[in-house]
């Protein structure tokens, strides 16, 4: 059979393309972050079902996120972002209370300095304080003001890192910027708006899955449900999939060597069951079903939110025309993707594969030609 013209890029129903002639409808996740309460039931339910090992016991200070990222040992990851920004139509939570400037950005910048052993390498790496500050910022973010404040003078404990326990906490600085004595704020010049974003991240099960396409063993394969699964009996830990994933999802487990990620509970799907995380989710933030249905539901949800005065609501990964042909697991977000640690515009690496092979071919010919020339041309 001839592969689909969109086999490497563009809209595609992946299961038939992967040889499942009588494939069931493509199944996937729609994660609606506007109703996520950050309970992390998804993380636990996933670990319980899939026997995923513990991923470290460190306080990260990334709001309530102590998991840090999707890793080989965390197939669901709930992100927490504190921002002094309006949340839709809601009454400003701190209007009228005697607040000063926001600390979200400064705290995030500190949290960027923490790292975590997750049973993988390098676990959760440290981050860029300024980028963290922008993630949490809702207005002018005076990270410097916070940092520059002379630690020894303004912040007695900062003088003694051990006492401050900042050994692992990255740059030391006061909890918040500004020299204004607390409580002088009327609430007018202080922070009034605040929102707490929560989002349960997971493998995107891309239509065009680079991890799958570059896998040299066929360990990563496309299931009849259109999902992408690592076969633990096949994977030999070559690690290619890890550099290929544009979302940084798949990861190698230490002392095991193999690559691991969400399987969208392939074994449960086979039995007609709902994936563990979606079944546990108390508020239906994680919805599981035929992708087309989910996409329609999501479209309606966005419109509802826009009507209810939440213009920042937008979908991510829903569009079959995007750089990966659409995600099998897509999201409703309330801020730019990178705020949640998602790439703003991922493009599957295989899009350029034909061009790459072409360039390689030309280079190869050039090489051969050069050799021939080297031997025939010239006298000695």
């Amino acid at each position, binding site marked *: 059979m001839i592969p689909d013209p969109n086999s490497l890029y563009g809209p595609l129903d992946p299961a038939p393309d992967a040889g499942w002639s009588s494939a069931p409808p493509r199944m996937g996740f729609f994660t609606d972050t506007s*109703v996520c*309460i*950050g*309970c*992390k039931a998804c*993380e*636990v339910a996933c*670990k319980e079902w899939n026997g995923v090992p*513990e*991923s470290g*016991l460190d*306080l990260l*200070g990334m*709001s*309530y996120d*102590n998991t840090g990222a999707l890793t080989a040992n965390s197939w669901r990851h709930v992100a927490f972002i*504190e921002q*002094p920004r309006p949340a839709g139509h*809601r*009454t400003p*939570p*701190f*209007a*009228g*209370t*005697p*607040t*000063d*400037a926001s*600390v*979200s950005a*400064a*705290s995030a910048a*500190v949290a960027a300095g923490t790292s975590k052993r997750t049973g993988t390498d390098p676990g959760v790496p440290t981050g860029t304080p300024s980028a963290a500050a922008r993630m949490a910022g809702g207005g002018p973010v005076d990270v410097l003001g916070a940092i520059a404040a002379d630690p020894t003078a*303004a*912040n*007695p*404990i*900062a003088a*003694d890192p051990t*006492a*401050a*326990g*900042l050994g692992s*906490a990255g740059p*030391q*600085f*006061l*909890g*918040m910027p*500004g020299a204004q004595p*607390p*409580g002088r704020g009327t609430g007018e010049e202080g*922070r009034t708006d*605040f929102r*707490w974003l*929560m989002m349960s991240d997971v493998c995107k099960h891309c239509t065009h899955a680079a991890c799958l396409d570059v896998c040299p063993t066929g360990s990563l394969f496309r299931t009849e449900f259109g999902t992408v699964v690592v076969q633990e009996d096949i994977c030999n830990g070559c690690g290619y999939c890890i550099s290929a994933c544009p979302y940084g999802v798949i990861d190698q487990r230490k002392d095991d060597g193999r690559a691991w990620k969400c399987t969208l509970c392939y074994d449960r799907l086979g039995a007609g069951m709902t994936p563990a995380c979606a079944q546990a989710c*108390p*508020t*239906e933030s994680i919805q599981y079903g035929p992708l087309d249905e989910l996409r329609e539901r999501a479209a309606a949800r966005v419109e509802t939110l826009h009507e209810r005065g939440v213009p920042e609501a937008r979908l991510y990964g829903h569009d079959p025309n995007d750089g990966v042909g659409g995600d099998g697991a897509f999201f409703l977000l309330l801020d730019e993707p990178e705020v949640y640690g998602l790439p703003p515009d991922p493009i599957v690496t295989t899009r350029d594969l034909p061009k790459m092979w072409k360039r390689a071919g030309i280079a190869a010919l050039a090489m051969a030609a050069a050799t021939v020339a080297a031997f025939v041309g010239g006298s000695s």
Partner: protein
Amino acid sequence: MAEAHPVGFQWVMEAKRKGAKVFHVDPRFTRTSAVADSYLPIRAGTDIALLGGVVRYILDNELDFREYVLSYTNAATIVSEDFSDTEDGDGFFSGFDPETGTYVQDSWQYEGNEGSSGSGHTAKERDSASGLEHESHGAQVDGDTPRDETLQHPRCVYQILKRHFSRYTPEMVERVCGIPQDKFLELAEAWTRNSGRERTGMLIYSVGWTQHSVGVQYIRTGAIIQLLLGNMGRPGGGVMALRGHASIQGSTDIPTLFNLLPGYLPMPHHADHPTFDEWVDSIRHPGQKGFWGNAGSFAASLLKAYWGDAATPENDFCYGYLPRMTGDHGTYQQVLNMIDGKIKGYFLLGQNPAVGSAHGRAQRLGMANLDWLVVRDLFEIESATFWKNGPEVATGEIVPEECRTEVFFLPAASHVEKEGTFTQTQRLLQWREKAVEPPGDARSELWFFYHLGRRLREKLADSKLPRDRALLDLTWDYPTHGPRAEPSAESVLREINGYDVATGRPLSSFAEARADGSTAIGCWIYTGVYADGVNQAARRKSRHEQDWVAAEWGWAWPANRRILYNRASADPDGNPWSERKRYIWWDAEKGEWTGHDVPDFEKTKPPSYRPPPGASGTEGIAGDDPFIMQGDGKGWLYAPSGVLDGPLPTHYEPVESPVRNPLYGQQANPTRKMYAHPVNSVNPSPPEGHSQVFPYVFTVSRLTEHHTAGGMSRTVSPLAELQPEMFVEVSPELAVERGLAHLGWAHLVSGRAVIEARVLVTDRLTPLRIEGRLIHQVWLPYHFGFEGLVTGDSANDLFGISLDPNVLIQESKVGTCDVRPGRRPTGPALLDLVADYQRRAGIGPGHNAPAVTTDSEGRERSDS
């Protein structure tokens, strides 16, 4: 709610999806606030001021559901002219006795019933936490009461209510709670607009509400609002308690509590209940209306269930076997007695007081001074290892080599390793099937106590001592099965349900209870759970196969009613208030009450029924009196008795507060239970001096990722890794004031202890402006201790012991402390630090704030 009860919260989110507006009131911005439409930061311990403000808003704008209020509440009832309100008493109602710090309630009674409060003096009631008895029924009051249907009489409840709350204005709410007026008005407006004939509003609280020195009055205030708005006994209404333990409701219905017997029958008091009849009458209140008329049958049936053939009408059903209360025997009194060496042995059954109870140090010192301690749990919890790993070992207060306590740790069976029923927070009993055998020596409590009892009876078999009769005559013959001789839980449930002594037929309703010893009932309110010999609690009919009430899933007490007092869902004539809210109604053709639920009313008593003069008991209840357990069949806006600290809720400051009570000269609840014990010093509050030594308010609560004292979550890796360390949340403003750094360390000091925690500086906390002053609040999770996968200092160590007078529950949701950067000292230096603070605060050992502080100068008037 999203924090502590996420799965219950799915229904809130569902309502939200349908357009409901969600308000969240909390000292800190939580995961609930994150999805709420409006978040109101509040100063911990000021809820009555907020809710009182709502009451005033309703009354001033006449937004109450007048028809409902007139017919179903005691709004029209006229109160004795002897009554005087806190408005006149600067924080005191009439009848206060400074000597005992309690009230004489006579003057609170309805007009013409002054004599009948039955509680000349409430000191005894306070010690016996008698408030708890009213979980299943109202307190005593004579049925026939003078009313003014126009609500104009100056002494009718409606007018008294109006006067009492007249000063709870939006301005006052802002001054006391720190909630901006416009936000308060947004709340009050939405709440009232969503109540009435067509709509109902629900009030949900988590039981942190009960952990205040005025906890019962918090809930009373909520009840008053819901009654005024007509939200009681109707679908989508009510006051919902979100309780925190799988069967904490069950352990109150079938109480492991010192002052109660199953079904909220009071444990006899040596002075008040010398005989069976006096005991029964004290419950039944001869001549009173309502279902408690049958108390005699319930009491006799219980004793019959306990002592079987030995219990006869002639010997008062072995009433003499029952132990008698002489005062306060509550858990905190016990702990102090342990420290004083008065108690020899202690059983801990799936409970971890070393972390979970207030004043952890007192708990641990008490346990270190026992002869023996039995701990039954899944894990080696802090309460089992305090003698080697407790903080007091580090400070030298407990030296293992000198600690006498003999400790038995017995592994317990988990919820899948035994069968039985949990009663969840809405009175629903659900049967659990056993999945596997418990591992190793692990056993169920059922096994442990059955075989322990067997052994005790064997050891005493030859005893001639009268005191051993109670044990030897006890019915203790439950069938066992399996190699480990596990007792049959169903046979116990059958006894709880009750049976006909002669035939052994399980009873199907408590109406079948008899006072002549022909019925035995272990817990009368549970009668029906084993009706027809079928385990009704084991019913699992799928929600897809039944209506939204889901009456065939499990079994709810009483009589499988899902909404109590649901007669109120119909108007006085028995018709639904509205089609939208149709629930229970009177079917004239059939001549009976019908609807979606089991009617909480005599099935065939027509709405038009009026009791004959002098009628008592059930026949005294009129056809339009929905609150059938109440002495007058009415919902009580005003409680003439039964609530020890006042017929109406009043804002008192928390026992430890940096703020002088803006409403009354009386600072804190004058009737609270105080313990003057050397170990229990209380931080000073205004008008006392030195309150600035502990300038900050701290409050504690749960994290979604952990459970109570952590025994079931810090030991479980997928949970432990999600919240791996003890931390304290502080506002940016406090961080600057005290030089705290995000992810740095801080330690908190109270008059009892000093604990340390990592700092989270977050916008989610805010200072509040109270009385023009800036008040900082910090928040701590109380899950951490020194055992388990993840450890940390225990927040509850910071608290002292002061109790609500009605139910003797401690104030452990708000206290004062100092916050200091860096780690706490260790070893003896830690004790020095606390001592230094005590010295600076001028609080000697056992210091208690004065009970009475009406003197505006703030000098103590009496007491201490």
